[in-house]
């Protein structure tokens, strides 16, 4: 257990004891409390190593049934009939539900287009048609197999090109041209700046579906009590999920309670855009018993919400001395059959990259296209890795054309503190240039350049990310309560939750720092929509920054009340008191020579146990100082931006095309690092996921679905494929962050596919145009480099018709 302590209260005591709401600057960076920036042990570590953490599938309720789902085997079909007779007769079956048992309401985060269970049409392989609840999972699965569904197969669109073709079948009748969403802008006059450019580079680059691959699949347990349902869900976003589930169930918001279980990895995949919890609730209502429904791995692949495949045509202009002039992108994104958050991802994938360099003009046209494939959605990076890959490739081409080393080209054009992008991204703290220099140094860039090794290549990439993003209405805030207990602890009540990143530990550190308590004496709640504060949850790298500020203010407020109570109890002015090591301290009173020490719990108890006694409960809130972007995505989406520079060295075997990433250096600007091992873990894990996206993660496809949707075919990176990592944090301080901190959850994933591709190009002269960067593509790039072959040529050739999904 940690014994880290902090002192608090000296400065706060002078303030009036009320909840602070006005923006404030953090403490001077030179006087960070000792519990901040130290390797405090995770508050949940022992639970996790002993297997006692209760994940979604570990919930046990008496009389609980288990669910199973019947899914469409067709990419597009009309449902002619559903016969549930045999399933209903199977002993142990308590409920069978179809679309007829639902409220027949379409739902979705931005564009409602998804029914809880299909009514008359299925639109992808995996679409939910019926479900069963039975006494055990095996019986439920057997019953599901007994449901007879008659389909009339319809023509399907299985690629972007098929979906965009003249007269293509429509995935949704109301989406003309299969267009789900579209926007564009021209800020600064791109054509004029291209005309004034000396060097123009152009190309087409495409990403593919990447699955979150959380080792825990999506799961829910539902139980009704009269007309209310409680859902124990492994969701990243309990309050946002509740809103959507209530809509999908046709219920008022008050009829749905969501409680977060332990979450076995999120990465965007558990942010409440899929039907599992909704179906679970419907099964529980019909059976009159609690029901648990947990995705199989196959279902997670067939009906999860993987990363959106994006096809970018990128054009960049530069002056001959390397200053970037204009950027033009035409982006087509494969939405899949339903929309979820893809619309918002498209926005980030279009604009975010423009906050990285000092572009004179930026133009974009972005379209989200329906296909009869698995719906897509939020995935760590939220469009950024796709933009970084495509635009990063163009930057790498430009560096070669200009004869400038990539780190030097980035340094020439990188944003700084005070920069404002064409979309009004207002950069407060920014150590991007420091990151570029440190990543170059960490990998030994110039030494390696001076003594090149055959078949080895070197590359660098940079990225920018948000710390929270205004997406779900004009609010990206958080609020918290800190209750001091009569046994001397602090109970933090906050609805943000924990998905594995260590958020509850950093929030406990912040509370401990403000209250002068040990981290071990702080507990942080799990989200419960009935009990905790409202919170948007774990998305957009927001919890440390947004919730950290809210919790800090709540803890300050509690501290002020504590010192006020101690002041009355001791008869001493509050300004003389402070809290440290779990005690309220005062210097010797006039005429005395011993200082006063009173345990926090004694003060709290004395404040309570008296006539009209009062509890000590601090409240605090913080709203991201950002703007809600307009329809054309103009607006400062976040109050703080985090940055990264990453460099990689790879080796390619020219005989096979096999690529090995030897070394990868990441220099991250996330402001103050609150807990180094936790921050390192975010960076290391993000790099691993980026390597999966870059190299290993893909499926073979047939008839609109992966042929074998399991972990044997879909290769997550293992320990064996990890390169030597150098992870560094920039000396940085964000004035609006808690103790100077910014977000760190996603940033390190973003540049990885781009730097691997650029390093391969540097090693063997083959530039890949579609992820993942497989040995096969590299081999054909080396051995058969005619136009159209996979991986052929640096020319902006038309996008080759290859890869997946076919």
């Amino acid at each position, binding site marked *: 257990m940690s014994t880290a302590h902090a002192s608090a209260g000296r400065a706060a005591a002078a303030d009036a004891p009320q909840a602070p709401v006005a923006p404030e600057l953090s403490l001077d960076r030179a006087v960070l409390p000792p519990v901040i920036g130290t390797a405090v042990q995770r508050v949940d570590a022992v639970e996790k190593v*002993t*297997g006692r953490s209760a994940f979604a599938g570990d919930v046990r309720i008496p009389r609980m049934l288990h669910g199973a789902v019947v899914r469409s085997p067709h990419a597009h079909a009309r449902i002619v009939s559903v016969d549930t007779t045999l399933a209903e007769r199977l002993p142990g079956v308590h409920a069978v539900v179809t679309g007829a048992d639902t409220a027949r309401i379409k739902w979705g985060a931005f564009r409602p287009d998804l029914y809880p269970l299909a009514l008359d049409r299925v639109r992808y392989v995996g679409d939910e048609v019926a479900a069963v609840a039975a006494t055990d*999972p095996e019986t439920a699965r057997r019953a599901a197999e007994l449901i007879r569904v008659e389909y009339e197969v319809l023509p399907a669109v299985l690629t972007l090109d098929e979906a965009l073709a003249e007269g293509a079948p429509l995935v949704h009748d109301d989406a003309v041209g299969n267009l789900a969403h579209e926007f564009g802008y021209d800020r600064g006059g791109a054509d004029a700046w291209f005309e004034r450019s000396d060097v123009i580079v152009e190309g087409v680059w495409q990403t593919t579906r990447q699955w979150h691959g959380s080792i825990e699949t999506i799961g829910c347990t539902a139980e009704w009590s009269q007309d209310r349902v409680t859902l124990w869900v492994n969701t990243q976003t309990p309050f946002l999920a509740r809103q959507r589930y209530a809509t999908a169930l046709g219920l008022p918001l008050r009829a749905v309670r969501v409680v977060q279980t332990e979450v076995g990895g999120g990465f965007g995949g558990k942010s409440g855009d899929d039907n599992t919890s909704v179906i679970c609730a419907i099964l529980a209502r019909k059976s009159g018993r609690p029901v648990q429904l947990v995705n199989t791995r196959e279902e997670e692949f067939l009906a999860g919400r993987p990363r959106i495949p994006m096809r970018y045509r990128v054009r960049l202009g530069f002056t001959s001395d390397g200053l970037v002039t204009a950027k033009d992108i035409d982006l087509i994104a494969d939405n899949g059959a339903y929309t979820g958050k893809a619309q918002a991802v498209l926005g980030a994938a279009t604009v975010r990259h423009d906050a990285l360099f000092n572009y004179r003009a930026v133009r974009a046209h972005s379209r989200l296209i329906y296909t009869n494939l698995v719906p897509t959605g939020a995935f760590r990076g939220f469009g950024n890795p796709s933009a970084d890959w495509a635009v990063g490739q163009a930057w790498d081409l430009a560096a070669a054309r200009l004869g400038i080393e990539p780190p030097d080209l980035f340094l020439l054009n990188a944003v700084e503190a005070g920069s404002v992008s064409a979309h009004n991204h207002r950069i407060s703290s920014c150590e991007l240039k420091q990151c570029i220099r440190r990543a170059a140094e960490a990998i030994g860039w110039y030494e390696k350049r001076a003594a090149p090794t055959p078949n080895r290549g070197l590359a660098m990439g940079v990225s920018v990310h948000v710390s929270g993003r205004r997406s779900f209405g004009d609010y990206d805030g958080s609020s918290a309560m800190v209750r001091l207990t009569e046994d001397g602890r602090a109970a933090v009540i906050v609805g943000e939750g924990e998905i594995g990143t260590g958020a509850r530990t950093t929030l406990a550190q912040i509370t401990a720092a403000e209250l002068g308590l040990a981290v071990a004496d702080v507990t942080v709640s799990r989200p419960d929509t009935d009990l905790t504060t409202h919170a948007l949850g774990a998305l957009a790298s927001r919890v440390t920054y947004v919730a950290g500020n809210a919790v800090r203010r709540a803890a300050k407020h509690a501290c002020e009340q504590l010192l006020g109570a101690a002041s009355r109890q001791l008869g001493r002015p509050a300004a003389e008191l402070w809290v440290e090591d779990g005690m309220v301290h005062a210097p010797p009173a006039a005429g005395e020579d011993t200082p006063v020490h009173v345990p926090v719990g004694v003060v709290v108890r004395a404040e309570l146990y008296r006539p009209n006694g009062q509890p000590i409960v601090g409240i605090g809130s913080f709203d991201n100082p950002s703007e809600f972007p307009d329809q054309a995505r103009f607006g400062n989406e976040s109050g703080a931006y985090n940055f990264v520079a990453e460099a990689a060295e790879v080796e390619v075997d020219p005989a096979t095309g096999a690529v090995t990433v030897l070394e990868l250096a990441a220099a991250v600007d996330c402001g103050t690092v609150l807990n180094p091992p936790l921050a390192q*873990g975010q960076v290391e894990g993000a790099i691993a996921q980026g390597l999966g996206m870059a190299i290993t993660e893909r499926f073979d496809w047939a008839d609109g679905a992966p042929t074998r949707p*399991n972990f044997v075919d879909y290769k997550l990176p293992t320990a064996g494929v990890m390169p030597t*990592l150098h992870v560094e944090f920039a000396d940085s301080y964000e004035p609006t962050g808690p103790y100077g901190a910014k977000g760190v959850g996603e940033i390190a994933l973003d540049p990885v596919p781009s730097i691997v591709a650029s390093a391969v190009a540097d090693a063997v002269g083959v530039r890949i145009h579609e992820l993942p960067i497989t040995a096969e593509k590299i081999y054909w790039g080396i051995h058969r480099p005619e136009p159209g072959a996979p991986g052929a040529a640096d020319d902006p050739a038309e996008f080759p018709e290859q890869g997946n999904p076919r």
Partner: protein
Amino acid sequence: MAVPLRFRLNHEDVEIHVHDPAATLLDLLRGDLGLTGTKSGCAIGYCGACTVIVDGEAVPACLQMVGLLEGREVRTVEDLAGPGGLDPVQDAFVTCAGMQCGFCTPGHVMAVRALLDRDPDPGEEELRRTVDGNYCRCTGYVKILDSAREAVALERARAQEVR
């Protein structure tokens, strides 16, 4: 028809009747026996989340048919920590922050435990090969490898204390 089955589970004799000898140890543990520390990640023996120790060997419980357990010795993660505290392997994962979401953690802990039972002083290669057998989607494996190395050191220190 239910078949009687006797085996050792976490140092206790278990006598049950199984209806389906082809059912998996994973379903038995998580179902009737209520031991949910062993996790299900893929159900095809690939991800390692359900790793348990059967007769000293790390095996995926999702591939272990219960009908073949007669007379055998099974250890799950629930057996590691005792009144004296955590197992050295668990201690190492805590110390080195060798987890994030924690879902794969019991499997990783059991895999390293089985390795150390077989070879208390494994080399770096052996450690890497062991960790390479289990998926983790959160950590990038850096701190899991650190934990495995630390486990070797803690195990050695504890062995010396006993002496």
